[in-house]
């Protein structure tokens, strides 16, 4: 996900507009995550054939020193930031 995903008419893309209407957002319960974890998330996707897929994340990548991004990820981000200016 890069800055270009938020620019120009990206939001008007028909796939984005169609899918946005299928997204439902709710707070999680203490059955999903401990009460003191305020940085988790669960995504649940229902496919057209009825299959239900779920994924839980306890903390976003890079959020603390204990869960830091790698040097390669940091460099990739920096190059993306500076590269965009030169294009």
């Amino acid at each position, binding site marked *: *996900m*890069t*800055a270009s*995903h*938020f*620019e120009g008419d*990206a*939001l008007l893309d028909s*796939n*984005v507009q*169609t*899918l*946005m209407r*299928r*997204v*439902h*957002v*709710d*707070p*999680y*319960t203490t059955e*999903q*995550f401990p009460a003191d*974890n*305020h*940085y*988790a*998330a*669960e*995504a*649940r*996707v*229902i*496919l*057209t*054939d009825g299959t239900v*897929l*779920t*994924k*839980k*994340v306890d*903390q*976003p*990548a*890079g*959020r*603390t*020193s*204990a869960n*830091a*991004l790698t040097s390669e*990820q*940091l460099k990739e*981000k*920096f190059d*993306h*930031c*500076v590269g*965009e*200016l030169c294009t």
Partner: protein
Amino acid sequence: MTFAQELAKRICAMNYEHFPSETNQWAEVGILDTVGVTILGSRDDSTRILEKITAADRATGPCLIFGFDRRTAASEASLINGTASHVLDFDDCCNTMSGHPSVPILLGLFALADEYGASGKDFITAYITGFEAECRISLGVNMHQYIKGWHPTVTLGVFGLVAVAGKLLRLTEEQIATALSIAASMSSGIKTNMGSMTKPLHVGLCGRNGLLAVRLARDGFTANLKIFEHNQGYFNVFNGEGNYDISKILHDWGRPLHIVDPGMGIKQYPCCASTHPAADAMIALAQEYDLKPGNVTRIDSYTHWRRLKHTNRPEVSTSFQGKSASNMLLLVR
């Protein structure tokens, strides 16, 4: 001693030689990441509009404006660069601060370093000191201040900037206490402006104001040193009686340094951090199962309730709103 004096004493006592060995590594990460996001943010419409307006003031000075081909006075550089640094919401975060630790302090520091010169050691010492000051204040006022609707990146960050500038310019304890007290009257930023150009402007204003507070204090300006704990002071006005704890701020200062533990959050995505865990979960699912828009009937996203007040935006219509929208982010990859 008043709270401002206690804070100033701790800021003055911060010493590079006492920092743990991994401090430099994290400082470098924070500095480089901030430079990158500021350069990227310099081309945004909000930065360009602001630069065009302030250029008419014809300020002159040695301070670089990131992404532009001119230099200017520290006040203008910190205003424009501060805004650019936060415009994409791509800059670092810290769990302790409930906000962004580097942008309110580093862009002012860059401007000062351009004006006065600074060794790498002085630069990092000032940065770590400001980072610690704003995080420590947060320990005593959050999450209450955040939930109430203030924008802690700047309502706390302005004190971080005073610490940074006070340290770099080697102000006395009394001058720093005064600068903190002046800055208390400059602290501002209301969360409802998140999702608009005014959110990053908060950071630019914080930088400009913090530098002014330090310069005023250095030249003998006065302020009430009881500004924090007075019954009509910062804590009661911003948090309210009973909703803050001064002892949490002052006790065990610097142990550990917050830039080391819990450390900074470095963003992988240019949008509000409250949306990142959901984005991580959705990207993982999309990659694992090679999801296509046509095959998806419904997506449910569960995040913490506190993160939803400003990110549940089913009617998102601009990219700025999209940056703060869980709804849109689940779809972008």
